[in-house]
């Protein structure tokens, strides 16, 4: 049996907000329970982060608020430029092709990459959707960027995606503000899937939803992952969500990855004191 090929390999990712000083390392990190340097006020949002993501795998990133998990996700989404490091991407459709470093792409190519190969679902729908456009218009954006120029075909594809994400297709021309929170998350998922991405990024997708809606959204993500063998990077502070979806998990605290491994292993036998605290408080 051959090992599944990786599609994304990140290493040495750093992101700081501020100038930094020689004493930053002394005062920040999980050991000091602080990511902001008290001397120069620089926030070390992500320090030397790295991971490997295999095709068809769901990798969870868990941690408390301010731990750097969303920064890491946004660096992969090429929306936040990393200060240093590499994100190697291997195209799953052409596995023999040489991997490319996403951080070396110019703005024009990275925008095209983001549109064609990545899909993202945010916690707050207004970040992922334009509330002035209709639901159909929002889903159509990625198709139009991919040079779809036939309104009939575009609308047929939107309806197909709406059915796939359990949204009523007859509401294609309704405004997003007439949809409930759970439905808006599904609209975001439909938009993210419209370009058949290689990698789906999920940023706290179920936060702020009530339990029954959460379960429905999670079921949908699980079904899509199963049916399309979609590779996903899932950020959540909720271990329950991570447990349901992610095969492997990395735990972040104060901008550092403190532990990584199989999700079951992390939940049953956490090694790092912070992970132990996280697991004991969740279960």
């Amino acid at each position, binding site marked *: 049996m051959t090992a599944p090929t990786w599609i994304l390999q990140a290493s040495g990712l750093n992101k700081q907000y501020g100038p930094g000083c020689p004493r930053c390392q002394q005062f920040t990190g999980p050991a000091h329970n602080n990511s902001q340097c008290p001397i120069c006020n620089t926030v070390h949002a992500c320090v030397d982060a790295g991971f490997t993501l295999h095709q068809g795998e769901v990798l969870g990133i868990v941690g408390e608020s301010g731990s750097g998990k969303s920064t890491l996700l946004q660096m992969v989404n090429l929306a936040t430029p990393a200060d240093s490091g590499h994100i190697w991407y291997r195209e799953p459709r052409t596995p023999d092709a040489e991997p490319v470093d996403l951080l070396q792409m110019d703005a*024009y190519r990275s925008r095209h990459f983001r549109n064609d190969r990545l899909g993202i679902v945010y916690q707050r729908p207004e970040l992922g959707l334009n509330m002035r456009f*209709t639901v159909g*218009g929002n889903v159509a*954006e990625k198709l*139009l960027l991919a040079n779809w120029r036939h*309104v*009939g075909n*575009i609308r047929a594809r939107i309806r197909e995606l709406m059915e796939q994400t359990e949204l009523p297709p007859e509401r294609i*021309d309704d405004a997003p503000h007439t949809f409930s929170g759970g439905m808006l998350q599904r609209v975001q998922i439909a938009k993210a899937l419209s370009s058949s991405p290689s990698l789906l990024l999920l940023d706290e997708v179920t936060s702020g939803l009530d339990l029954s809606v959460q379960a429905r959204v999670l079921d949908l993500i699980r079904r899509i992952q199963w049916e399309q063998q979609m590779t996903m990077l899932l950020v959540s502070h909720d271990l329950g969500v991570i447990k349901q979806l992610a095969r492997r998990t990395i735990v972040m605290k104060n901008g550092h990855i403190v532990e990584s491994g199989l999700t079951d292993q992390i939940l049953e036998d956490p090694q790092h004191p912070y992970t132990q605290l996280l697991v004991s408080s969740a279960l």
Partner: protein
Amino acid sequence: MSTTPEQLYNFGFIDEDSKREVRRQILKAIALPGHQVPFASRDLPIARGWGTGGLQITMAIIDANDILKVIDQGDDESVNAVNLRRLLQRTTGVTTTVDTTAASIIQTRHRIPEEPMRRDQILVLQVPMVDPLRWVEPNLERATVMHGESDYGRMWVYMYESVVKAGDLRIATQYPVIVAGRYMMDTTPIPRWDVMRLHNAEALFLFGAGREKRIYAVPPYTTIEPLQFEDFRFKTEFVAGQICARCGAQDTFLTSHFVVDTTNPAGGYWRTSCSDTSFCDKRVLVNTTNQEAPQ
């Protein structure tokens, strides 16, 4: 010898350094068709929004040997056109004309003259809103990045929404186009009738926005592609059966106006006529003298 107040100003009103700066930006705009080039818009003796952008371009490029035509809504005699023409004429002393074929520089708002323009002519357009992305991205900084990356997806969604809401592409004016396959450009308040007349035209088109401090250009023989879908094509305005009440034209851009019946306050009627008045006058003359009709 007495001196008129206008003669106390520099040739073309604005100072030579300002003209040089405008000309430099015009050259840059011509080198990057459709790209909005910032320029230091000067104060003029007319209010911003009344054609100061176009006026500064004309003032920067005009020469004593040029023949100038100024139109507004296709009309040589509208208030705006008359005042701009008078200012330019008094501060440069150039010859002015209403004949499109005789002019070397034509300053215009809203229209491209009906008669095809030649390679030795320049059309200067007064622009109210420069950026087509303003409809979908009000933040100027983000819109600039979108232009830089050819990120026009949201504008396409705007077009899609137009089809969904109105059943067709219902953008009457400021129709967005892609210039030379690269930049998206606002076609100023020219009607859709004139949009495709920019495509591969012989003349140079210069667009100036004084209030927004931007210049852009469509050089001769540049491709212009209006945003359209395979099943919803770009269309020009056309109302079957409408003809010009003066010259009988059916192949020009027509405007309508209400004719008041002075004998009956409740009376009156709507009349259509050519928007390009000098072209209409020529045709009227041809009709009355049986000369060869202008093309």
